[in-house]
């Protein structure tokens, strides 16, 4: 999916409009901290109207700005989603569907109906150039489909009836051939509809952690409300008449407006980061859970290793030179178009500098699944390479102890041995192995430092699996894994108090996807898998699990860092406002004016202005997120506590002082 820049002019304009609309107290009530700020702003405005003076007017204005900045932050975060939803909506424009009248008889008779009138169970015909009306399952035919509307990837994908590639998504376009699709959802509930709802935030509910944080922020608001209201009585005792405007100013600066104003923007931006990453989470809860994941269940193929095994070594028999074996292997693989075959050709060329030889009168024997052999007949030689038993049968020879040793050595190391024979003569063995993706080992080490275990899931036998696991540096592996094994493994880990993430695409993955705390279904997967998981990866790339975990952590970190920052800010605000409040009664209170602010009014106003501006200043951080580093929790905490805790303590002292200097220079207070 295309995604707008972080600050797009159109989004900002729309957000500015929305931020005013969001001032409606009924909707602001959901955010107690900002709601209290709004009540304060209204109260000071009322007092200013009754007795207009420049100071109250400025306080009232800045309190309104504080509320506006908070609603603006949320509006910007939502605006980004809305822009994406708009482009998605284009894909959903009303389409005509060809409803098959007699789907059982195959007579091909159809009636053109509006897609919105279809019901689950209807069968439609979709032909070249047609848009698939609603989500469904192919029950007949095979087609290439452009799914760019949802994935942003224009390369067509093949979908066919039966098996794990039968699901199609409404809004995507058939490029060639015709298929019969059984509709599985009602109009308005398609995948695209759900995506639109998610990115627009229409279905946005507070996530569990967000809810807990709101409770804490409301509690702190209440505590400071008590402190400020009682201060009125205490000040009265001390002979100071504190104005309500000043008390409201003190309250608003003390309550956690920074995090209160940015909290919902942080949550929306977290979902948004995931969407830009082409992953759709069905709930915010899943994103939070991603941050908590302790164990990653990773499929070997495609994630840890490249999809295919590759030739890495030639093992010649005694009396055969390596170059001779390589040359024979090259010739025998000319007719093998499988990736393995091509990798043999590539290895022979790169390691032995062999060139294609002119082969007049050569007969290629292409690789076939039945024979499990490929080869060439040239100049009277019959060269074959392939599975060991097939080659032995072809050569009619029994394996020598030396040959058997070579085969065993390859098998033990987790590789696959291929034999090469020239007529009845066994030339040697080719070592095919799974090639670990470069850098994956370091990645797993980093995950381990973060406290996340990686488990490799593979259909290989335990010997092969163990060899690959140790080479890739995973913490554990599941060999000859069936879907039931995966489910059992997940349950076992969960009983031990760990959260599991996995990805899958087949219908038989569905139970494990549902059981996992974070289940990422591939967009290419079956409908069952997509419904069982709580995330869908539109790119269908199993490697993404790692990034998903990091995005979850980033969301939580951003929330925590800004909360800490917001709370730490209070110390400086006290030192700005308290001396200002009482310096007329007790001139010696000037000793607490650590920042040397120019006048009591300027001190109070500076604190209020800082409190408002810091929200705007932090919007980019809230949207972009605090950068995540692949280090352990202790190192992360040390860093974030220094930056946001200590920074939050110190920064407002500087900020308030600077604003105070500005106010004094402009003669505003």
């Amino acid at each position, binding site marked *: 999916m295309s995604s707008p820049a972080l600050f797009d002019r159109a989004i900002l304009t729309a957000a500015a409009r929305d931020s005013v609309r969001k001032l409606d107290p009924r909707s602001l009530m959901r955010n107690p901290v900002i709601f209290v700020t709004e009540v304060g702003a209204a109260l000071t405005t009322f007092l200013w109207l009754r007795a207009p003076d420049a100071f109250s007017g400025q306080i009232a204005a800045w309190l309104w700005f504080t509320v506006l900045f908070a609603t603006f932050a949320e509006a910007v975060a939502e605006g980004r989603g809305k822009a994406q939803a708009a482009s998605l909506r284009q894909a959903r424009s009303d389409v005509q569907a060809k409803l098959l009248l007699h789907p059982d008889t195959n007579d091909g008779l159809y009636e053109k109906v509006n897609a919105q009138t279809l019901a689950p169970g209807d069968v439609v015909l979709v032909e070249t150039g047609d848009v698939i009306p609603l989500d469904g399952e192919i029950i007949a035919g095979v087609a290439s489909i452009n799914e760019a509307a949802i994935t942003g990837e224009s390369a067509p994908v093949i979908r066919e009836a039966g098996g794990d590639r039968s699901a199609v998504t409404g809004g995507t376009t058939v490029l060639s051939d015709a298929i019969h699709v059984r509709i599985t959802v009602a109009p308005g509930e398609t995948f695209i509809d759900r995506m639109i709802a998610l990115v627009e935030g229409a279905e946005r509910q507070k996530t*569990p*952690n967000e*809810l*807990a*944080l709101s*409770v*804490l922020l409301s*509690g*702190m608001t*209440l*505590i400071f409300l*008590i*402190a*400020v*209201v*009682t*201060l009125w*009585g*205490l000040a*009265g*005792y*001390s002979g100071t008449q504190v104005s309500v405007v000043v008390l409201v100013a003190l309250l608003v600066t003390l309550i956690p407006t920074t995090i209160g104003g940015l909290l919902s923007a942080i949550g929306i931006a977290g979902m948004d980061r995931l969407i830009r990453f082409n992953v759709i989470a069905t709930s915010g809860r899943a994103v939070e859970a991603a*941050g*908590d994941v*302790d164990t990653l269940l990773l499929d070997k193929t495609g994630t840890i290793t490249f999809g295919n095994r590759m030739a890495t070594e030639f093992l010649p028999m005694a009396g055969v030179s390596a170059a001779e074996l390589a040359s024979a292997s090259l010739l025998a693989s000319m007719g093998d178009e499988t990736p393995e075959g091509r990798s043999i050709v590539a290895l022979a060329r790169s390691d032995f500098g062999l060139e294609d030889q002119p082969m007049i009168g050569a007969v290629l024997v292409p690789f076939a699944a039945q024979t499990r052999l490929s080869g060439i007949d040239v100049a009277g030689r019959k060269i074959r390479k392939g599975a060991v038993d097939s080659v032995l049968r072809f050569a009619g020879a029994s394996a020598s102890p030396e040959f058997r040793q070579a085969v065993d050595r390859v098998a033990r190391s987790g590789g696959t041995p291929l034999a090469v024979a020239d007529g009845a003569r066994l030339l040697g063995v080719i070592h095919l192995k799974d090639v670990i993706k470069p850098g994956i080992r370091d990645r797993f080490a980093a995950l*381990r*430092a973060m*406290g*996340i275990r990686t488990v490799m899931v593979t259909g290989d036998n335990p010997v092969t699996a163990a060899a690959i696991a140790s080479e890739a540096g995973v913490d554990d592996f599941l060999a000859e894994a069936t879907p039931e094994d995966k489910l059992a493994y997940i349950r076992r880990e969960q009983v031990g*108090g*760990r*959260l599991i993430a996995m990805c899958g695409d087949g219908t038989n993955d569905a139970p494990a996807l549902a059981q996992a705390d974070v289940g990422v279904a591939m967009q290419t997967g079956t409908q069952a898998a997509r419904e069982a998981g709580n995330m869908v990866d539109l790119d269908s790339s199993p490697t993404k699990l790692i990034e998903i975990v990091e995005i979850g*952590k*980033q969301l*939580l*970190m951003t*929330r*925590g*860092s800004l909360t*800490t920052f917001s*709370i*730490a800010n*209070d*110390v400086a605000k*006290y030192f700005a406002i*308290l001396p200002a409040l*009482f310096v007329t009664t*007790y001139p*010696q*209170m000037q*000793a607490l004016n650590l920042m040397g602010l120019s006048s009591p009014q300027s001190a109070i106003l500076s604190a209020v202005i800082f409190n408002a501006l810091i929200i705007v200043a932090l919007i980019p951080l809230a949207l972009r997120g605090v950068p*995540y580093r692949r280090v*352990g*929790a*202790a190192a992360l*905490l040390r860093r*974030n*506590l220094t930056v*946001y*805790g200590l920074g939050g303590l110190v920064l407002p002292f500087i900020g308030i002082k600077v604003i105070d200097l500005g106010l004094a220079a402009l003669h505003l207070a």
Partner: protein
Amino acid sequence: MSLNGWLQIAVTLALVLAVTLPLGRYMAVLFTGGRTVLHPLLGPVERGFYRVAGVNPQAEQGWASYALAMLTFSGAGLAALYAILRLQGVLPFNPAGLPGVAPDLAFNTAASFLTNTNWQAYFGEVTLSPFSQMAGLAVQNFLSAATGIALAMAVTRAFARSAGSLGNFWVDLTRATLYLLLPLSIVVALAYVALGVPQSFATLDVTTLEGTQQVVPLGPLASQEAIKQLGTNGGGYFNANAAHPFENPSALSNIHAIWAMLVISAALPITFGRMVGSERQGWALLSVMAVLLIGGVALVYWAETAGNPLITALGVDPSMGNMEGKEVRFGQAMTALFVAVTTGLSCGAVNAMHDSLTPLGGLVPLLLMQLGEVLPGGVGSGLYGMLVFSVLAVFVAGLMVGRTPEFLGKKIEAREIRLAVLAVLILPLVILGFTAVSAMLPAALASLNNAGPHGLSELLYAYSSAAGNNGSAFAGLNANTPWFNTTLGIAMMLGRFAYVLPVLAMAGSLAAKPRAAASAGTFPTTSLLFVGLLVGVILILGGLQFFPALALGPIVEHVLMHAATTF
């Protein structure tokens, strides 16, 4: 401040630390149902109690039934104590023929001893008969302390288990009294006797310096002192409390008194650590308490030795510092330690006149009480208060490591936060609310000895002490009026029960959660960093709301003192 003074402080704290580990482990064994060395002797007694009371010691209680048992027991205790005080005139052991206690004072006193506060709005020696002191107050000295320990153990089990239940209140109460408080107070009382504290019903006929004859009643002082200190009760037999030469005759008995009030509260974090399977966690919590407490000691010690420039100006030798209201036999260092410890704990015994402390010296006990009595806090109540702060600290900062917050493997979610916030809301509400109302009420202001910021400190101190269940008094406030007796009584009840009920509910919710496995990605709660974080959270979340009140009280008084203004 002198090196000698700091050495005295260090030696006293080292004596506490020496028994922290064995006592902490002993309590861990005791409250997990294990056998202690005292079982051969006390086991039959314990079982006898259960048989008589019809308690099944095996039965586990959820948070609600644990709380109900505690409330029932406390309600009965309140009623019994109130009755004893009101009926004092017709009850035995009343040699002086003292009349029944007035209703408001009886309520205040009953609430005070029930909640482990021991705020005394009366003069012990002239208001209460020995029967009231022994059958009324001393009983609650044991039971309120045992209740506090039981509650702390219930909250501890929330982190140690995943079964949902919190233990059995009756069993915890019995074990805390029988195996812990009784044997310890016998040892401590004997030590008091050895240090010269009277334990006698005799009276002394003495000739005073003026040459007149005076009858001085003694009393069961050593035994009363023992549980008063051990149970962080703090209610003195005499009005002068631990400054009285009978209660605290020498520098050595002073060390003993400080040791006795610290020893259980300092060991409880270790018990917690043992029970949750990480002794390191216990040491981390104890470190937080120690850092803040020693900071408090240092501030009092510094402020008091720096003295009062106004008094120096009158020609008094400033080398001794501010000695007004202090006992020469204890000296500045050990007075500072006592002041900070008795308020960092919710003990409230005093060996000096807190009203006479310098403004900053007086700020420390105020703040230590307002922080929620967790440094290290009253027996039991300090531990569960500290756990509430730990939960909040983990929640605020835990997110910064990129995981939803968990403490000792228990996820901290909305329900826990709601309850923790409800608990910490009580102190500012009660302290600031009652202080502000009193500060505007002429009837209340008439009780003040001083005007200006010092008067405000006196009010603030009274409600901080009551709500924090401390019981020490700034003095300078005539608190025996219907207004103060009633509101302070309410403050004490709220400070204890309105605080602990949400905490128990939180414990119940945590106890039902599975314990997540720890990994390198888990928020570290035993590191030095966590200790620093928790200190910060206690100061900011627990203390910041009191800053305006403190600024108008002791802080402004301090700056005024240096500007030579008095009230």
